[in-house]
C-alpha cells in the first residue's frame, strides 16, 4: 500500500474542514484520527502539525521570517525589510521572529522559507576575504 505523507494528511484534513461547516469539525477530526490510527501513522502527528502550519500560511499569504541583527531594528528598518521579503516571497504579510546576535557586527540576516538573505557585516567581511584570496 502506498504510504501517505504528512503533507498529504495535512492537505486532506484542511481541505475537508474548509469545505464543511464548523459544527462538523469534531466529526471530521474524529474520523481523521481514526484514519491515522488505522494506518499506523499517529507518530507522524508532529510532521502533520508543521505541514498544517505551512499550508495555513500559504492560504493566508503569510511568510514567516527569522531575523538576526546586532541591535534592535527601528520600525522604519523593519518596514523596509518586510517590503523586501514580501516582494521576494510573493506573500502579503510577514511574521517576524527577531533575535540579537552581536557576532554579526552590523547589518542583518533574514531567513524565510529556504532562502537566507545575508546583509551582515560579518558575512560581507567573509566574502571580501574569499574575493581577495581568489
Amino acid at each position, binding site marked *: 500500500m502506498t504510504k501517505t*505523507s504528512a*503533507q498529504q494528511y495535512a492537505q486532506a484534513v484542511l481541505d475537508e474542514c474548509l469545505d464543511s461547516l464548523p459544527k462538523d469539525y469534531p466529526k471530521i477530526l474524529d474520523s481523521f484520527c481514526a484514519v491515522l490510527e488505522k494506518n499506523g501513522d499517529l507518530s507522524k502527528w508532529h510532521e502533520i502539525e508543521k505541514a498544517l502550519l505551512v499550508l495555513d500560511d500559504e492560504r493566508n499569504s503569510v511568510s514567516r521570517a527569522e531575523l538576526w541583527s546586532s541591535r534592535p531594528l527601528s520600525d522604519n528598518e523593519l518596514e523596509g525589510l518586510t517590503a523586501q521579503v514580501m516582494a521576494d516571497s510573493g506573500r502579503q504579510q510577514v511574521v517576524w521572529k527577531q533575535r540579537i546576535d552581536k557576532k554579526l557586527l552590523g547589518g542583518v540576516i533574514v*531567513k524565510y*522559507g*529556504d*532562502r*537566507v*538573505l*545575508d*546583509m551582515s557585516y560579518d*558575512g*560581507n567581511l567573509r*566574502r*571580501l576575504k574569499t*574575493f*581577495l584570496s581568489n
Partner: protein
Amino acid sequence: MSETKDYIVEQIRERISRFQNLAETKSVGRVLKVSDGIALVSGLSQAMMSEILEFKAASGSVMGVALNLEENQIGAIILGDYTAVKEGDEVVATQRILEVPVGEAMVGRVVNALGEPVDGKGQIKAAAFYPVEKIAPGVITRQSVTQPVQTGIKAIDAMIPIGRGQRELIIGDRQIGKTAIAIDAIINQKGQNMKCIYVAIGQKESKVANIVARLEEAGAMEYTTIVLAGASHPAALLYIAPYAGCAMAEYFLDKGEDVLVVYDDLSKHANSYREISLLLRRPPGREAYPGDVFYLHSRLLERACKLNAEHGGGSITALPIIETQSGDVSAYIPTNVISITDGQIYLEPDAFYQGNRPAVNAGLSVSRVGSAAQIKAMKKVAGKLRIDAAQFRELAAFAQFGSDLDDETKKKLERGRLLTEIFKQDQYNPISVAKQVLIFFALTNGLIDNLPLDKVKEFEAGLYEYADISGAKLLDKVATSGEWNEEIEKELRALVSDYKKTLQYLQ
C-alpha cells in the same frame, strides 16, 4: 621601500574597490537523512538538476550534487567524505551545475572524477571549466566517419576498422585482454594527432598504476589524461567519472582536435548507478537497474561524434568496455551498449586460452562504419579478411569430422591457419598501418603460402625489420599517399620476394 608600500596599498585599494558590498541571497536546506553517500535534503525548493550543493559539515564543507528533485525534498549524491555529513547539517545550493576543469594542463595527468590531481604532480591550472552533463551535438553539426583511428592491432585494423568519431564497444569476459586493446590503441596514437583520455571506472588502483607506468614508458602520457574513479571510491564518483572524461574530451573537440576516450568499464558504471538509484529509492527494473539505465549510457556515448568542417572538424572516438559474465552477450547492460555503439569487438575466452591473442572473434565482432574508416591500401588488402577468418572457423570445425577434403577447402584451411597466426600479436606492440598492409598483402596474394606456421612470428618480425631498412620510402608512401596502384603492388611484391630470398627455410 616606499614605492613598494605605495604599490601594495594601491593594489589592495583597487581590489577592494572592485568588491561589491552586496547582500548575499542563498537557498538553504537541512540534511534529513544520510546513508552510503546519498543524502535527503529538505528545503532547496529552487535547486536545479545536477546543481552542486555544499554540505556544511562540522569538519568543513563537503560537496554534493542534486539528483532527485521532489516536492518537499531532494536526493543528492555526496562527492566527498560522506561520513562527515550528519543529519541536520545545513546544505547550501551554489547555483552552479557540476563542472570539471579542462584544458591542455590536464594532459599527462592522473585526475579523479572531479578533475582534481591524484598523481602528486601539483595543482592543475585549468583553461576552463566544462559541465559534466551536456547535450550531444545535433545532426546539423555532424558528418559521417571517414578518417581511421589506427589501433596498431592487426586483427582490429584489418577486420573491424574504427573511425574517428565512432563508438566501438570492446566486450568480453574478465581477464581476456579488453583493457590491453584499449591501452595498445592509446600507445599507437603517438604522432597521430590524437589526444587520449582513459577513464578507469571501479578499477583496482594497482591496475591503473600499472597502466600509467606502461603509458609513460611508451611516451603515451604526453597526450593522455587518466580519469580515475577507483574501486575504493564512492559510487557517486564512479557515476560521474565517464561524463567528466567526456567533458575533458569536449574541450579538445571544440578546438577542432581529435580525441580518443576509453571508458573502462561501463558494466561497473551501470552497477554504481544502480547502487545510487536504489539508495535514492528509485523503482528498480530488470536486474534491479533503474528504468533509465539505457539513457545513462546512450547520453554518454552520443557525445562521441565527428563534427563537420564548419564546426571545427574535431572528433571524439569512444571505446567503451563491457565485461560479460561467462560470455553472455545477451545480458541486460551488454545488449544495451551493443545497441548504442557503432559496432563491437568481441573477445572470446576459447580463443584466448588457445593462445590467439588478441582473442577477437571475427564472426561476432563488427564495425558498422566498415571500410569507410580504412586507408585505401588497407581496404584493398584486407577487404575480405573478416569473412575469410569467420569462414575458416566454421570450416575448421567442419573439417575435424572429414579427412577427404577437396583442394579448394584445403587451401582455405591453410590460408586460415596462416591468417590466425598473423593475427596473433604481443601486448604493447602496436604495428604501423603500412606494415600491416605489407603482411596482409603477402598473405592475400599467396606470397607466403609455403610458410610453416611455427615460423610466422619470426618471418613477420624479420619482414618488418627488412622493410624498415629496404622499403622505408615505400611504407611511407602506402601510409600517407592514400593511393593504391599497380606500381605499389609491384614494389610490395618485390620487397616480400627479396626478403624471402634471405631466408633459408623458404628456399
